[in-house]
C-alpha cells in the first residue's frame, strides 16, 4: 500500500539539529518503498506553516506531520486537516491541549524533563565540587518565544530549587540558539559578575559560545557548563574537559519516530497519544557510552 505523507518543519537550516532531522526523515522515507513524502519548511513563520498545511490538505496527502512553529496557532489548521480526514502527527514539540482532539499522536522529546535533567546534572556536579550551598549561576536561553526554549527554561528553573535549593540563578538572557550571540551575552556576564560557578545554556551551540567567552577571559576552569541537545561541538568540548554535561538527543531518532508514528497511525495500529523518546543525561563521566553526534 502506498502512502503520501506531508511534513511541515519549523525552520530548517536554523541549526544543524533541524537540518539533520530533515535529512534523516527523507532517508527513512526513501528506505521505505511504501512511502512518498512532501517535505516543507515553514521558515519559522506561522502564517507560512498554516498555508503549508492548507496546501497539503489540498494535495490530499494521506497524513500530515507537523513540527509546530506555535503550538496553539496551528490548531485551526490542524482541525481543517482532521475535518478532511487526514490524520495529523505532531513532532518534536507538542501543540496545545485544545488541539489534542484533532491530532492522532505526538512524537518527540520531553523538553520539560530535559530542563529538569540539566538542573540535576548541574546540581550533582556542584555537590561533587562541594559548592552546592554557595554556587551562583547564569542561564542563556534559546530564541525567545519558541516552545522548546520556554519549556527547557521552565523545566530547569522548576527543578533546580528542588535539588539544590541554595544555588542562585542570578540572571537569564536569551542567546537565540546562536553561538555568537551567546558568546556576547556571556562576555557581559563575565564583566558583571566576578563569581560565576555555572552556566546553563538552552542548547550546546549556545553553551559552547559561552565557553568560548569564558576561555577568552581565562575563567573557563572555574565554571561548570551544562547544555542541552548534545551537538558535536558540545561533545568535543566535553572530551577536552572544558564542558561538563548536556542532554543527549538525536534528531535521527526524532525523525524516525515521527515517520514510524505516522505509518502506525495510517496502518490503523494502536499508538499512544504521547510518544516521548528518551533523552538521557550525558556528562564527561559517561560520554564514552554515547556516539559522537553527527550534527
Amino acid at each position: 500500500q502506498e502512502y503520501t505523507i506531508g511534513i511541515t518543519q519549523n525552520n530548517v537550516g536554523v541549526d544543524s539539529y533541524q537540518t539533520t532531522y530533515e535529512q534523516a526523515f527523507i532517508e527513512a522515507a526513501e528506505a521505505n518503498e511504501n512511502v512518498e513524502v512532501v517535505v516543507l519548511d515553514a521558515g519559522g513563520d506561522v502564517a507560512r506553516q498554516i498555508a503549508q498545511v492548507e496546501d497539503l490538505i489540498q494535495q490530499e496527502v494521506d497524513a500530515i506531520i507537523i513540527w509546530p512553529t506555535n503550538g496553539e496557532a496551528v490548531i485551526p489548521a490542524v482541525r481543517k486537516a482532521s475535518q478532511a480526514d487526514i490524520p495529523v502527527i505532531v513532532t518534536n514539540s507538542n501543540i496545545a491541549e485544545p488541539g489534542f482532539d484533532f491530532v492522532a499522536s505526538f512524537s518527540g522529546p520531553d523538553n520539560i524533563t530535559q530542563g529538569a535533567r540539566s538542573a540535576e546534572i548541574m546540581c550533582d556536579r556542584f555537590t561533587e565540587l562541594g559548592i552546592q550551598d554557595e554556587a551562583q549561576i547564569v542561564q542563556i536561553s534559546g530564541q525567545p518565544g519558541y516552545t522548546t526554549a520556554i519549556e527547557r527554561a521552565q523545566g530547569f528553573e522548576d527543578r533546580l530549587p528542588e535539588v539544590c535549593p541554595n544555588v542562585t540563578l542570578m540572571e537569564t538572557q536569551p542567546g537565540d540558539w546562536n553561538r555568537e550571540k551567546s558568546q556576547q551575552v556571556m562576555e557581559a556576564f563575565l564583566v558583571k559578575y566576578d563569581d560565576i560557578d555555572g552556566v546553563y545554556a538552552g542548547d550546546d551551540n549556545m553553551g559552547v559560545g559561552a565557553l568560548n567567552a569564558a576561555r577568552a577571559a581565562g575563567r573557563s576552569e572555574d565554571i561548570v557548563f551544562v547544555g542541552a541537545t548534545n551537538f558535536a561541538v558540545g561533545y568535543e568540548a566535553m572530551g577536552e574537559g572544558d564542558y561538563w554535561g548536556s542532554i543527549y538527543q538525536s534528531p535521527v531518532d526524532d525523525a524516525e519516530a515521527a515517520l514510524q508514528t505516522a505509518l502506525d497511525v495510517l496502518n490503523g495500529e494502536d499508538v499512544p497519544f504521547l510518544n516521548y523518546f528518551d533523552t538521557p543525561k550525558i556528562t564527561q563521566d559517561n560520554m564514552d557510552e554515547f556516539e559522537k553526534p553527527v550534527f
Partner: protein
Amino acid sequence: MKPGTLSTFLARGAIWGFIVLELIFFSIAGQFFSVSDNAFLDPANMLLLLKQSAPIGIIAMGMTIIMINGNIDLSVGATFALAAVVLLDSMTWPFMAAMGDWAIPLAWTFALLTGAVLGAINGLIVWKTGVDAFIVTLGSMLGFRGLVFMYNGEQPTSHLNWTLVDFAEAQFLGLHTATWFLLGVTAVIWVVMHRTIHGRNAYAIGDNREAAINAGIRVGPHMMRNFVLIGFLAALSAVVFYSESGSVNPNDGQLYELWVITAVVLGGTKLTGGSGSVISTLGGVIAIQLLRKGLGHIGADTETVNLVIGLILIAVLFLDRQLNVKGKEALRT
C-alpha cells in the same frame, strides 16, 4: 492606440506576465515533480493562493502609499504582532469574556486602534523630529517588538474562539474571508490613491517634496496620516490572520517588512517615491506567494527555495528593466 501604449502596457504588466510564467512553469513542473495528483492550477488551489496572500498583501497596500510618499516603514512586522497580542488578549479580559461573542467586534476595534496608535507614534516622530522614516521605523521595529515581549513575556498569547475561527475560515461566493479583506483593502486604497486629494498629494510629496511644501501642502500631517493608515492596515492584517489562528508568538511577523517591501517594489513602486500602483502591488504580493507555494508544490528543499527566490527576484527586476528600457535614443547617464 497611441504609439508606445503597447510597450507601456507591457512594461506596466511585467509583474502579471511574470505571474503567468510562474503559473505555467509550476503546472508543468508539477506534472513531473509533484507527488500530488491535483493540478497546481486547480481553482481551489488558486483560491487558497489568494487567501494565503492576505497577511502580506494587506500590509503591502499600506506600504505602497508610504513608499509613494517617499518614506518606508520597517516596523510593520512588530505592529502586526502587537495588534495580534491585543486582539487575542483583550478577549480574555473579564468584562470582555462576560460579553460572549459580542466581545469579538470590540477586540477587533482594540487591535485596530493599537495599530493606528503605533502608526501615529511613527508618524509623529517622523513629522516632529524630521528624522528619516527609515531610522524611525528601524528603531520602532525593535521598540514595538520589545512591547510585544513586555506584554506577555516570552509566552505566546492565545485565545482560541471557535466562532471567530469559523468566521475567518468562512467562504462567501467561493472566496475566503481573508481574500475579501485583501480585495476590499486593495479597492479602497486604489480609490484613495486615484480619486482623493489625499492620494494625489501623496504622489506629489513623494515626487517632489520641496514643490509640495512650496505649494502649501502640509507635508507633516499628511505623512502622519499615512503612517496611521499603515499601522491600521498592519493591525487589520493581524486581525484577519489571528482570528483564524488564535495564538501569537512574540516573534511573529518578523521579516514581514522585507517581504512586504519586496512585493511593493516588485509591483514597480519606486523606492524614491512619487510613483507606484496599488494594483501592481497586488501583483507583486501574488507573485511572491505563488513562488513559495509553487516551490513547495514541486518539492524544492530549503536551500533551493532560498536560492531560487533570491535569483527570481533579481530576474524579475531584470525583466522589468528590459521591458522598460527606452530605445536607443535614450540618454546614457
